[in-house]
């Protein structure tokens, strides 16, 4: 069933059904005087289904009655409110409908199954996004400059001891800093020791004790035991990740294209001269939250916002 729900076709049909409903409810065919509320068995089933998805059991007859009663109540309020035009330009209603459409667009093509060739091409075009960063294994011995009259000399002394086989766990100043990391990227090292230290460390090759290297905490003597250089993994190693990114990109593109096609159907008209004000870029007038004229669905007339209304701008 889940599989079925993921079918893009289903999403389209859902989308269509919603739009159909929206058009239906907002057109003249919705008579304010309509006094009949038909509760279909399908609707009852759906109410019961909502309940069971929340509680993982079917509702009792009493609970079901409550659900139906609530549905009827909300249906009556809904119809009366619609008849009064309360939905028009209500920001919640607008937002909800727009969100529904966006979510459905989001799902477009999400589950498409590209072949390896498509993924290979995608990986190649986006190599840096999938690159494995260089990774280091190292140990460090910390030296707190505040605790020594001559930190540089103390560093040299410690370095000598370490190179002579001294126990790194017993040398240096006590600190909460971790004694080292294994197979850590520059970013992971930086999170513990700061950026400067991480950068310096990436320049080191495996070998003996070296230093001192400065961090935001003080001085460190360091021994790098392993240094895996950055590399570009093959598709087989990271197919799942590439597929996820591929789908994500395709989803964005499909959504944007669908939006652009819809937008082509509208004339966007700025009501007055657009040459003044920071929000006046002709490319980005779009519908501001309260400027749409409901009588002219195909023309969106945007009055210039009194101040630079950032919300009225579209993302590029």
């Amino acid at each position, binding site marked *: 069933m889940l599989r079925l729900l993921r079918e893009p076709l289903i999403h389209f049909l859902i989308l269509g059904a919603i739009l159909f409903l929206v058009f239906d409810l907002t057109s003249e065919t919705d008579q304010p005087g309509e006094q009949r509320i038909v509760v279909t068995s399908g609707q009852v089933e759906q109410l019961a289904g909502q309940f069971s*998805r929340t509680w993982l059991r079917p509702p009792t007859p009493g609970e079901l009655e409550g659900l139906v009663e609530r549905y009827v109540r909300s249906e009556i309020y809904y119809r009366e409110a619609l008849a009064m035009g309360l939905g028009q330009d209500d920001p919640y209603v607008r937002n909800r409908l727009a969100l529904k459409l966006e979510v459905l667009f989001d799902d477009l093509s999400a589950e498409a199954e590209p072949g390896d060739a498509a993924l290979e091409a995608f990986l190649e075009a986006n190599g840096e996004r999938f690159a494995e960063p260089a990774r280091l294994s190292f140990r460090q011995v910390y030296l707190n400059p505040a605790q020594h009259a001559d930190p540089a000399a103390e560093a040299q002394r410690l370095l000598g001891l370490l190179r002579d086989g001294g126990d790194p766990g017993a040398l240096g100043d006590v600190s909460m800093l971790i004694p080292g990391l294994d197979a850590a990227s520059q970013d992971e090292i930086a999170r513990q020791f700061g950026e400067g230290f991480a950068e310096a460390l990436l320049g080191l090759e495996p070998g003996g004790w070296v230093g001192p290297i400065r961090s935001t905490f003080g001085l460190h003597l360091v021994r790098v035991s392993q240094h895996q250089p950055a590399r570009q993994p093959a598709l087989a190693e990271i197919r799942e990740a590439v597929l996820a990114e591929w789908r994500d990109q395709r989803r964005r593109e499909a959504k944007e294209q669908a939006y652009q096609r819809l937008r082509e159907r509208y004339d966007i008209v700025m009501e007055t001269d657009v040459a003044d004000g920071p929000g006046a870029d002709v490319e980005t007038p779009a519908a501001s939250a309260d400027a749409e004229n409901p009588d002219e669905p195909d023309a969106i007339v945007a009055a210039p916002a009194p101040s630079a209304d950032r919300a009225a701008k579209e993302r590029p």
Partner: protein
Amino acid sequence: MTTRNPFTSLATAALLSAVPLLLSGQALAQYVPLGDQESLSDVYPGKAYSPYAQRSFPSRVFWGDTHLHTALSMDAGLFGARLGLDEAYRFARGEEVMASSGQPAKLGRPLDWLVIADHSDGMGFITDLAAGKPGVIAFDQGKRWHEGLQQGGEASAAAALDLIGTFAQGQIDPEMFAEYSPGGKTYSSIWEDVVDAAERYNDPGRFTTLIGFEWTSLVAGANLHRNVIFRDGADKAGRIVPYTTQAPIGSTDPLDLYAWLENYEKSTGGSALALAHNGNLSNGIMFPVDAQYTGRKIDAEYARLRAKWEPMYEITQIKGDGEAHPFLSPDDAFADYETWDVGNLDLSEVKTQGMLQYEYAREALKNGLLLEQRHGTNPYKFGLAGGTDSHTALAAVEEENFFGKATNAEPAPDRMGHPFAENENGAFRGDMLVASGYTGVWAEENTREAIYDAMARKEIYATTGPRMIVRFFGGWGYTPEDINSRQPAFLGYEKGVPMGGDLKPVKGKEAPTFMVYALRDPIGANLDRVQIVKGWLDQDGKTHEKVYDVAWSDGRKPDRKGELPPVGNTVDVNNANWTNTIGASELGTVWTDPDFDPAQSAFYYARVLEIPTPRWVVYDAFRFGVEIPEEAETTHQERAYTSPIWYTPHKA
């Protein structure tokens, strides 16, 4: 100390192995305290130096946000949020995204984990829904659209438009429409998208996603909100839809939420927990002592259920810091921090002083001791978490990189002057938004299970944004030598319990000892001081509190009244700058409670204060070249709050 050498090397091994990419295939047991008869060698197996040695206790802090909203939350969308689940996860794991306000945004440092907690009301069922048969493709129209979709790109867009047009004109095949109209048999829900996104971005060892939602109970404008966090993935959390507040399916009463949680665990075999937030906006109903807002008396059942389902409390976030209030804690010089006490959430009712005692975490911890005496269980025995509650899909609460409460408070010259709420009862001014907070979790590894389990056992702490490392242990025999050992954490776990734990009872009158130490954020401010906050219940059933300075920087001497002089202030407001020329990068001590009475129940938690740094408004003023409103605070001392350690007397 003869065990030093083995300890040192074992500690090293454990810490070395606690790195993100080394996932042991086996489940690692939680640390089990030593019994008298066990020897150390039984507990720490393996040779010292191997980085693959088995870890036996949490050795790393993983940073995250328990509380982020995306455009899927109705109110977030209303404010203009357009970023969804994908962008939220991408941003949290360190990628640059385009904020809804059209400006690029990137975290200074990635988070290790994230809970997206969109409001459950209005989220669950987006569509009215669809049933279907595989045979649908046989329909002529269906086939046409399906093929377009498979091609993607332009063909897919064209199919979408064709579909819209066909439906709009009522030309759809009626037989097909019947299958997919409202009242069909199955459902699609946003919740499925939420669960699906969490599964896609969960990357054990590197970035953990915990599935969650916010149950947004609002009683006449008073905030009773809880976030729910699952330990489980799609196989369990995907079987239900989130609990809402609308009867008859949902409810605003936390007792009903507990029943829903109970039912979830029973039916699916999964695990979930809840945490409340913003008691400061509840107008006196978040932490009831005598009766709930419904009038129902607080009893043993309420205490038991709340303790069971709410092991954490979100103590700090964008809508105010909820640790302490100066009215309740007049002797605490640092209690008045980012205080929001004008009214309830929507300012429909003003705050009165009588409400405060039921709103703030420290007072709740104290009242919990009283309720335990009355009902046998402490309902307010919670660990301390920090969340953003950002409604932008951006968990961005670094002071110099603060993306605000909602899209209309994303960086812009005028955002300081734009109130969060304002009416005849008062205002939550725009400059009052708090760039806070995050949760540090002491866990064995960065996975859903390990992070959830740490939350459940309360081995967590809250910060107002910075990522200082804090250890806090309580026991009966810590000595100053312990903290000067190479790896105090080993002794911490061996001789006592970590934050979130209970002191083991002892016979006798000896006072408990606490080992606390803190390391400043690697790219943040130095530390001013470490404090231990104690709350206790006396023999007359009255609660008390006291804040002890236990470790501090710069060799300061307390004055005759025992008060520590301020650490100083290096903040240059005009240039949005400060320096680490005061304070200490590391502070720690072993502290013994000087006022201990073995007959009185008590709790202890550590509060770690940074030196003063600029608030976000200062960075705004500098970058946008605007004036800071006169009433705005410009500097503050950011802080960490550890989960408490509790002491319960022997029953006579």
